[in-house]
């Protein structure tokens, strides 16, 4: 592998036998793959679409390729003739890893066959490279008679084509498009959820405003403790007052039904109800009261019955 300066981005000619150390200042490089990284054939495919042609390539390369895991690329050269490539991203990534080239610095990846088609024979490491029958062929130095006379590759004047490939940086257990579809679906649901969360937050804010409005409308104390204390005190008053009225109603209820007797005094003070009943049927009145009251005192003087009830 050799690093050569080009006019634009630097070009790395990637081979399996030569490793290179990139300058730390280099931010982006273009990679040109040596023929050992790919299989190449010219096929006549009845289509002019590059996409359609690539779809057919797995079956066309089936008998040629030694193992699985290949990806394909096709370049239309004339009519329905395509120069087709089969490559394994895994092998290329391994070679890049061996040379300590991070995937983040790679700009684009090219096939040497496309980029060096007009190059004169050149040498790189222990191999000679020549264009033969529209193919770039890699020949070991020992088998090339004039190897030493060959010049090294010079990429300075090379203009790279648009025929680049995208390496797959992951295994394809599940089809990438399915993963992306599921991910987008999940993300959309998440976005919907976050919108609902925002709506809920907005409703919570409205509730807070409603609370303030209620506080102002009913002139409530600032703290809920104060409100609760006042409500408790007034509820106690309410119950107590209702109790007094109900008990009074009950006591006076006897008077309505009675003919022979009457209540001549009814006095409430300090939580005690004193009453004086005048009549012959005192015992009946006492029985009537005892249904709901505990009578504390019973004084029977002449025709008068003195009673004390604790409310």
């Amino acid at each position: 592998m050799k690093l050569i300066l080009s006019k634009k981005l630097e070009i790395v000619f990637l081979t399996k036998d030569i490793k290179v150390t990139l300058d730390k200042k280099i931010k982006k490089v273009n990679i040109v793959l040596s023929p050992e990284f790919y299989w190449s054939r010219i096929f006549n495919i009845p289509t002019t679409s590059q996409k359609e042609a690539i779809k057919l390539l797995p079956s066309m390369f089936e008998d040629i390729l030694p193992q699985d895991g290949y990806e394909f690329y096709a370049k239309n050269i004339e009519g329905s003739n395509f120069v087709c490539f089969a490559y394994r991203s895994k092998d290329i990534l391994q070679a890049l890893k061996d040379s300590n080239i991070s995937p983040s610095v790679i700009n684009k990846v090219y096939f040497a066959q496309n980029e060096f088609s007009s190059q004169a024979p050149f040498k790189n490491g222990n191999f000679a490279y020549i264009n033969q029958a529209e193919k770039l062929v890699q020949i070991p130095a020992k088998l090339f008679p004039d190897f030493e006379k060959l010049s090294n590759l010079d990429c300075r004047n090379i203009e790279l084509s648009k025929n680049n490939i995208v390496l797959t940086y992951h295994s394809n257990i599940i089809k990438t498009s399915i993963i992306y579809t599921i991910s987008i679906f999940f993300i959309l649901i998440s976005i919907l959820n976050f919108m609902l969360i925002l709506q809920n937050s907005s409703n919570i804010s409205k509730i807070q405003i409603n609370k303030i409005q209620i506080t102002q409308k009913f002139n409530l104390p600032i703290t809920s403790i104060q409100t609760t204390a006042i409500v408790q005190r007034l509820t106690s008053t309410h119950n107590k007052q209702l109790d007094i009225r109900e008990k009074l109603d009950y006591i006076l209820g006897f008077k309505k039904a009675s003919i022979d007797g009457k209540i001549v005094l009814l006095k409430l003070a300090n939580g005690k109800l004193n009453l004086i009943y005048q009549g012959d049927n005192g015992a009946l009145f006492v029985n009537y009261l005892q249904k709901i009251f505990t009578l504390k005192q019973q004084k029977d003087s002449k025709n008068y019955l003195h009673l004390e009830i604790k409310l």
Partner: protein
Amino acid sequence: MRFLNPIYILFFSIILLVFSFAKLNDSKNELFSEESNLKNYNQIAENFHELKQNWDSKDTVTKLIEKLLIDNDLKGSDINIDEQKNKTVITLNSNSPVKIQKFANKILNEYVIIESFDIQKNKITFEIGTK
């Protein structure tokens, strides 16, 4: 992004989804709690307002006195009103049991705090709290 494994994106989306559902659940619970609190708060406020109007308003006693003084049944009766610091003592002197009963009913039917009363044959007295 080209070299980002789609599985990572899937994991990220799953985590985001789970997180969003958890947050949504929290937010729903908070909203339900706030709604319940508001309902409760409104009830307390209405209760507070009603109790305050009924049992903690000096106007109620003033209105009661006005009612008693202009009442046709009690017109011309001997009604004494003694307004003290924290209470008002209202007394009716009458030989008519009907008047005494009506007077008592009118006071008992109002939201006034009856601290004590003394009902006799010819006289009825109510001590009403005004604090």
